[in-house]
């Protein structure tokens, strides 16, 4: 509903600004109270969802697991499908745009798969796997790991060391060497998959290897496409909280859609004093414009 007292200035520009950042369109129109309500309310909801979902409630693509191998080890962009929830989340504007940037980064061939370009020092969570005649013997371990490429410019072969502790309290250190299997740099998980063989002091391979994950930098996992295994992990660790987080971000986006509409068309029901003004018998022409 249009009201002559509401100065919409350039409605389309206001709507665009409102889409970019909740409340920005209303601020441009001089409607400061509504700008504050929309920006604070909608951004709190979106941020709250992000915090509850540990930063992983917003993503634009869900990576499909088409084989037993983790898509983290795929050099080519793995097959993925659209996250429909993102259709609501993106309406929040700039706060959700990193997901689009991460999608673009994700869709590039990742030459860092299985390639170490610099020294790595990280925590490690995974398993120590010893190959025996009876088969693989898998021991869950966690600890810290240091790795360096064998060439200064980076390489697929590495050397390093890992110190781990087992569930029964035992600790041990091992030397690492040979070719490394390292997951994609950009992926929607704070943990990066890694596989590496164990070597003895002379550099000979032992019949054992480590499989697990190391830390991935925030800029490489925040809002990046993730796979169902990561979703399973999130549901496992956060339970209902992850669903609540996703719903909060969706609601934030849908509320901003109404705010965008308000920036373009004005308040839906009217100015808000229609009943009082009808009683006083005053007309539009007598009332001062709000944002003149």
């Amino acid at each position, binding site marked *: 509903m249009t009201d002559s007292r509401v100065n919409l200035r350039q409605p389309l520009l206001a709507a665009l600004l409102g889409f970019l950042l909740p409340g920005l369109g209303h601020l441009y129109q001089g409607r400061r109270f509504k700008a504050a309500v929309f920006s604070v*309310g909608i951004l709190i*909801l979106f941020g709250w969802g992000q915090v509850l979902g540990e930063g992983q409630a917003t993503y634009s693509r869900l990576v499909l697991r088409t084989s037993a191998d983790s898509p983290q080890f795929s050099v080519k962009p793995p097959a993925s499908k659209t996250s429909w929830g993102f259709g609501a989340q993106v309406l929040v504007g700039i706060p959700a745009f990193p997901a689009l940037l991460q999608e673009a980064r994700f869709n590039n061939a990742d030459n860092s798969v299985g390639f170490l370009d610099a020294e790595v020092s990280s925590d490690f969570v995974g398993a120590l796997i010893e190959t025996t005649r009876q088969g693989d013997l898998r021991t869950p371990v966690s600890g810290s790991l240091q790795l360096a490429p064998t060439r200064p410019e980076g390489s697929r072969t590495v050397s390093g060391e890992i110190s781990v502790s087992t569930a029964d309290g035992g600790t041990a250190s091992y030397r690492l060497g040979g070719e490394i299997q390292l997951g994609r740099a950009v992926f929607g998980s704070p943990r990066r998959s890694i596989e590496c063989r164990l070597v003895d002091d002379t550099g000979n391979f032992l019949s054992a290897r480590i499989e697990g994950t190391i830390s991935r930098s925030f800029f490489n996992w925040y809002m990046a496409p993730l796979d169902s295994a990561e979703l399973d992990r999130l549901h496992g660790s956060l339970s209902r909280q992850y669903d609540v987080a996703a719903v909060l971000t969706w609601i934030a986006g849908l509320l901003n859609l*109404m705010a965008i509409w308000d920036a373009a068309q004005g308040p*839906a029901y*009217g*100015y808000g004093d229609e009943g009082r003004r009808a009683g006083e018998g005053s007309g539009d022409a007598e009332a001062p414009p709000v944002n003149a």
Partner: protein
Amino acid sequence: MDLSLITQALPLTAIVCLVYCATRFELPEKIVRSALVMFGKTLLFLCIAWLLLLWVSG
């Protein structure tokens, strides 16, 4: 009852009511007043629904 339900549902309801009413009216007093009314009605509805479900499941 899970306390997180209340700590999450109440602020969410309040924000949704305030933002929704802000898209309906222009006057700040009218926005706040109608948001409070909507918040109260929503809570009343949720309480009735909760009691109904409690009675049905009891």
